[in-house]
């Protein structure tokens, strides 16, 4: 592109808009990504506070929650959590964290911000669709939060909403709240579908010259595969949700046995979406960790193709393992055998990825920056979450640990230990490109070590009490004699969770302080190879002054014969590295 054409292109996309078109209804993928990030971080505060209340009740059952005496009945009684509210708390905690925190940050924030920058294009394929996708998600979040304030309160049937509990008001006493939960997730599904169509189209059609599929950074691969999973999984969830809403309001009986319905159908429909969903929650985290590990080991990613292939394998196998959530549901035991086999098989690509991360660290020159610490924690914690999954995959062992705290520990090691650590790492890593300033390293490290310590205090004991038989979703463990020897763990975990919460304040302070007063970032502060670092910091509307041309793969670090230890994708040159 000639300079004049570049200047023209620059003009065309640089709208000197007012506040509304710049910050609210922006069509710029970077602003939309940041909007998703802020919305999700706000939702994370709500989801976290709900979790703290759950923890309080488990450690100090039926004692008033400190500072909450003002909450009116029937939510709390002088600060004491009643069982109806307790069920609401964990249902909404999970719903918010999964659908309104982890997915929107990984897919909405990182997906939007990174894809055009990392493939070397000026924006998403469909900018208006992109803007709508954010505002529809925000509307869905509003619907979900509003459900707390309707009569009967918010949904209380678990985030899995098993029918018939969720299918008729009489079983929970929750009316409009459960309807709003359903509608909110349907609306969010529309947003996700818009986003995923956009991502897929953009990645397939708009890559910079020279950016072949196997020169894509792994995080773009992960977001591409995630978008395909979302596109295929969400319509199915939307259909199931519609059926549930019709059962509740319009007299159908898909899931109500007294009129000929079949409750187990809901579980099949839910988990057919729900298991790909689990990989939607972790794949982008794997991608983010891969970027950061390679950059701060100053080393090419070990087994790039194996990494991409493992993600593709996960994407296929993810569709045939849903029954492992249903081993004790009354499903034909022969199907249990089949799902156990597929579940054991899907462990293999995750193992491959772990070994390749270790291979990336091997022989590296490892810099322990805040993003790197989080990526390392991601690997370490994900190993625990992966290994604990094997217990549930073995059907006979699952008989005992199904629906116990063991599974709660497992999911938190994958989704918090995995995804959330990757999110913190990704925020610290791309913050300079997002806001033009560096996050503070000291605060970042304080936040990291505090989070790692208290995360493990909060969640590791869940495995121990799960093995002791402690059921999940029970309001008061003191009601059971056989749980008595385990109760002290509940107190330890609750203290851990309070510590975990306190250290997140450090993150919030660092995030907002750095946004306005952090050290100014250079164009490529980490000396990284990928294309986003070719754009100015922060990138203007339209991203690149000149469309970059890609000459090599994304991970050419410490190339022999080069005087620097990095070799950007867009730097012309010959030599051995150009082949990769």
């Amino acid at each position: 592109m000639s300079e004049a054409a570049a200047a023209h292109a620059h003009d065309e996309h640089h709208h000197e808009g007012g506040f509304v078109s710049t910050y609210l209804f922006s069509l710029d993928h970077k602003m939309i990504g940041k909007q998703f990030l802020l919305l999700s971080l706000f939702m994370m505060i709500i989801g976290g506070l709900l979790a703290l209340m759950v923890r309080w009740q488990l450690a100090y059952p039926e004692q008033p929650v400190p500072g909450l005496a003002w909450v009116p009945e029937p939510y709390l009684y002088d600060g004491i959590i009643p069982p109806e509210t307790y069920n609401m708390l964990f249902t909404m905690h999970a719903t918010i964290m999964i659908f309104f925190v982890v997915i929107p940050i990984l897919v909405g924030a990182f997906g939007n911000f990174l894809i055009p920058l990392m493939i070397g294009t000026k924006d998403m394929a469909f900018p208006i669709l992109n803007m709508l996708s954010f505002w529809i998600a925000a509307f869905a979040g509003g619907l979900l939060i509003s459900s707390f304030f309707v009569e009967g309160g918010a949904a209380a049937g678990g985030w899995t909403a098993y029918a018939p509990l969720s299918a008729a008001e009489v079983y929970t006493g929750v009316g409009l709240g459960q309807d709003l939960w359903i509608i909110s997730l349907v609306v969010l599904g529309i947003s996700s579908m818009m986003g995923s169509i956009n991502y897929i189209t953009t990645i397939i059609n708009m890559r910079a010259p020279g950016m072949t599929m196997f020169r894509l950074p792994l995080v773009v691969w992960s977001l591409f595969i995630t978008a395909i999973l979302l596109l295929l999984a969400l319509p199915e969830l939307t259909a199931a949700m519609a059926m549930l809403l019709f059962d509740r309001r319009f007299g159908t009986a898909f899931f109500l046995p007294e009129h000929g319905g079949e409750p187990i159908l809901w579980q099949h429909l839910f988990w057919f979406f729900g298991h790909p969903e689990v990989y939607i929650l972790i794949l982008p985290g794997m991608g983010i960790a891969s970027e950061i590990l390679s950059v701060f080991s100053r080393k090419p990613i070990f087994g790039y193709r194996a990494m991409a292939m493992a993600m593709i394998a996960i994407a296929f196998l993810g569709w045939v393992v849903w029954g492992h959530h249903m081993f004790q549901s009354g499903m034909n035991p022969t199907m249990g055998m089949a799902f156990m086999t597929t579940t054991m098989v899907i462990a293999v690509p995750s193992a491959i990825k772990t070994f390749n991360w270790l291979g990336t660290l091997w022989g590296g020159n490892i810099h322990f920056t805040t993003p790197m610490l989080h990526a390392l924690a991601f690997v370490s914690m994900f190993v625990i979450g992966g290994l604990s999954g094997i217990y549930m995959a073995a059907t006979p062992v699952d008989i005992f640990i199904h629906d116990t705290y063991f599974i709660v520990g497992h999911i938190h090691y994958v989704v918090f230990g995995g995804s959330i650590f990757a999110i913190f790492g990704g925020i610290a890593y791309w913050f300079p490109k997002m806001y033009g300033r560096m996050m503070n390293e000291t605060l970042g490290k304080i936040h990291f070590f505090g989070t790692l310590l208290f995360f493990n205090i909060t969640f590791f004991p869940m495995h121990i009490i799960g093995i002791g038989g402690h059921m999940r979703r029970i309001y008061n463990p003191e009601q059971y004699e056989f749980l008595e020897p385990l109760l002290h763990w509940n107190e330890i975990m609750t203290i851990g969770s309070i510590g975990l919460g306190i250290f997140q304040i450090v993150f919030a302070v660092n995030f907002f302080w750095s946004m306005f007063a952090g050290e100014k970032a250079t164009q490529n502060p980490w000396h990284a190879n990928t294309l986003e670092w070719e754009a100015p910091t922060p990138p203007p509307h339209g991203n690149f002054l000149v469309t970059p041309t890609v000459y090599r793969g994304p991970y050419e670090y410490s190339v022999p014969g080069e005087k620097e230890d990095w070799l950007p994708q867009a730097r012309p040159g010959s030599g051995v590295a150009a082949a990769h």
Partner: protein
Amino acid sequence: MLPWLPENISTYGGDIDWLFRLIFWITTIVFVGVQGTFLYFLFKYRARPGHKAIYSHGNNTLEIAWTIAPSVVCVVLALLSRATWDEIKAEIPPVDVTVRVYAKQFNWDFIYPGPDGAFDTDDDLTIENELNVPVHKVVKLEMLSRDVIHSFFVPVLRFKQDTMPGRQIDGWFEATKTGEWEIPCAELCGFGHSGMLGYLKVHSDQDYAAWVAKRWSK
């Protein structure tokens, strides 16, 4: 070793516990190996002045090795699990006592067929939250639910089965010890889920005969 599993009093519980321990040791060894290597690498390859990283894109032999090794472990685990799973869930041995379990918000109803051995007759007896069975006898449970999904969980028997409205699910166990244990509900079933609690009473043969005689001698 592993004192955290509750006591086991069922004939097949030992098989479950054996598998659990096997997986525990496999995962522990993998955990120590992976995390140990990880920490060693972090120390050994920490950035130092003048130090440069090795330039390597990977190694196909290693890729094949660490694809095959976990595959073999997982397939072996699946095969080992298969026999136990079939024993517990797929086949019911010759039955000595049959009890019908109706779960409802928030109680367990246990229905005994009575002397005629048939359900839905006049001599049926319904007992709330108390399952009486003889020791060393195969007990078959016909599980149903009157409203939502519940889950019949007896930790000491290593027994767990969701109960489903509109569908009868059969399960079985054979207790090896007399005594009394709790039967919690393990599937969220509403505001009274916590505290939905029954009791399993395992009697010696004589005590069970006496209990039957007393119950049906009106």
